[in-house]
């Protein structure tokens, strides 16, 4: 049986498939679908010091190959989480990462402090929600802000500290480096792209909030590119998100350099998606003879950047065919035919 476990921030996670914040609530809606303990981890909904009520009007709308949301970080606050959701999640045997939102640095710090010693696995700072002025995007699109909030939370907690980056920036690498320097143990990317949709019958924006966050399969290429860029530029591990629907999608992220992935929008369409993704990765590993997830991490990167040991087979399959001299035809053909999906 393949080893699906992955190590990040000093923690060994059962597998590299986590659920993305805001797409899995606090897990309750999924507990009847599969045991929550089967997940690598659950990133709970962005949680603030106090309850947030969220945005008015239409909050979600489908777009081609994706969706926009403008939930506005509605959440019941950290007290409710600690008193109600966390004990329940713990009972389920779930590994939990708390996604934190705040209006000020002090609010991020306050939530992080409350989690100290609680037993949650890590905190993930959401400095990238495009849907509320105070949802951290101010931090997420300013290098100084990003570094500041990271450093402040770093001081306040001994928990592993992940920072979730906004893709709505010119240079994602700068942000990753800034939070690495400020003490982050890992970076998560991407949060949603800022987008909008117009109702042409009603002649107005569909979302009550005007703009919303674009997620789902349509954003996968952007997410993969950013994961690739960041994984090549920082030493801390990268967690990849954005449009993952299948095991194959997840393998793309792992091969681009992500040490774990998160499944978001897919959970809405198919509540079993995270489990299907786990099984899909396992099936791909079995099929291609890979025994450890770690061997997939960075496998598509040029040798220097690749982590783990690539099995020889995989390496060969990735090699560009050399020119073929007639005498070597048979062997070369054998190789090419392996390479070709359709022969």
């Amino acid at each position, binding site marked *: 049986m393949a080893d699906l476990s992955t190590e990040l921030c000093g923690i060994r996670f059962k597998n590299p498939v986590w659920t993305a914040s*805001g*797409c*899995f*609530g606090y897990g*309750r*809606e*999924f507990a*009847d*679908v599969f045991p929550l303990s089967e997940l690598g981890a659950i990133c709970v*909904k962005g949680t603030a010091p106090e309850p947030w*009520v*969220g945005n*008015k*009007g*239409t*909050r*979600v*709308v*489908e777009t*081609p*190959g*994706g*969706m926009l*949301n403008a*939930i506005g970080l*509605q959440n019941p606050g950290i007290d409710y989480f600690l008193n109600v959701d966390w004990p329940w999640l713990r009972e389920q045997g779930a590994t939990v990462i708390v996604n934190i939102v705040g209006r000020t640095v002090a609010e991020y710090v306050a939530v992080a402090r409350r989690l100290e010693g609680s037993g949650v696995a890590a905190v993930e700072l959401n400095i990238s929600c495009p849907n509320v002025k105070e949802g951290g995007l101010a931090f997420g699109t300013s290098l100084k802000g990003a570094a500041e909030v990271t450093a402040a939370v770093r001081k306040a907690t001994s928990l592993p500290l992940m920072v979730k980056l906004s893709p709505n920036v010119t240079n994602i690498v700068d942000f990753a480096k800034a939070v690495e320097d400020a003490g982050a143990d890992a970076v998560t990317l991407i949060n949603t792209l800022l987008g909008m949709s117009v109702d042409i019958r009603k002649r107005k924006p569909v979302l009550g909030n005007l703009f919303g966050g674009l997620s*789902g*399969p*349509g954003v996968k290429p952007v997410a993969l590119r950013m994961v690739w860029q960041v994984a090549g530029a920082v030493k801390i591990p990268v967690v990849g998100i954005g449009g993952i*629907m*299948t095991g194959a999608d997840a393998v793309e992220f792992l091969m681009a350099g992500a040490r774990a992935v998160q499944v978001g*929008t897919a*959970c*809405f*369409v*198919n*509540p*079993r998606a995270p489990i299907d993704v786990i099984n899909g990765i396992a099936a791909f590993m079995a099929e291609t003879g890979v025994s450890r997830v770690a061997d997939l991490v960075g496998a598509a990167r040029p040798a220097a950047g690749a982590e783990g040991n690539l099995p020889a087979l995989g390496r060969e399959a990735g090699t560009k065919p050399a020119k073929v001299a007639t005498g070597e035809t048979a062997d070369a053909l054998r190789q090419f035919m392996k390479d070709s999906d359709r022969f």
Partner: protein
Amino acid sequence: MTATLKASRTKAAWVQEWAEVVAQTGDHDVYKLTLRAPEIARRAVAGQFVEVRPVAGRGSAAVDPLLRRPFSICEIRPDEGIITLIYRVVGRGTAVMASVTAGQELNVMGPLGHSFPDPATGRGMLVLVGGGLGIPPMVAAAARARAEAPDRCVTAILGARHVGFLAGAEELAATGVPAAIMTDDGSAGHQGFVTAPLKELLDAAGAGCEVWACGPEGMLMAVKELCRAAGAPCFVSVERHMACGFGACIGCTVPKSGEPGFWKACQDGPVFLAEEVELGG
């Protein structure tokens, strides 16, 4: 009494099923989909809904349309394992659904949300108000009322812009519940809005009526207001854009009435006690 009625709404555990399309009929506007979904048929109660992936087939890896589409359950036949839906093509998702043919399979989740109250719990005349594509859930409601509260007086008021938008009216008539038909243009039944006969009933029976309504939000607002004035308990089935349909996205919010915060239409509704929701918001 309203609290008891509210508590009598059913909320069942949902399942995800590959439903065989037994039949799909209709023209390019309004379609009726007959699905073999035994587990959902066994659990569903009038007023609940299903979430349908528009793209047919187990093998499909297509990601557009991406989200499921919510539809009220129109008929429930647990013995045959059948449910029916009636829907109108309004956009990309329903357009794709309309191309599905008998024998194909659709992925369906349900039954979702809270049903209408138990018809045997309430007292007095039960008035079912359905506007346009708000008629389909009233078919299931009428059938349940007939079956489980046979002695109760149940009447329906169905309205639509035009006779062509009265889909479900025949199915409702088949349950044996009498229906007043109203159309904007008089192309069927009487000319006018559902509120006219409703007002007459409420003027006569007042708090002796219990009203369930589904239709455009403007109609629900009017019905709610008429019931409030008459002191009649009123339940409304509310539509919202939904990303998930089972409570995970907090996308389908309806403002609470009189206090800050939101209900989730998919979990707390879609059938709400009218006085507890702020409509049009």
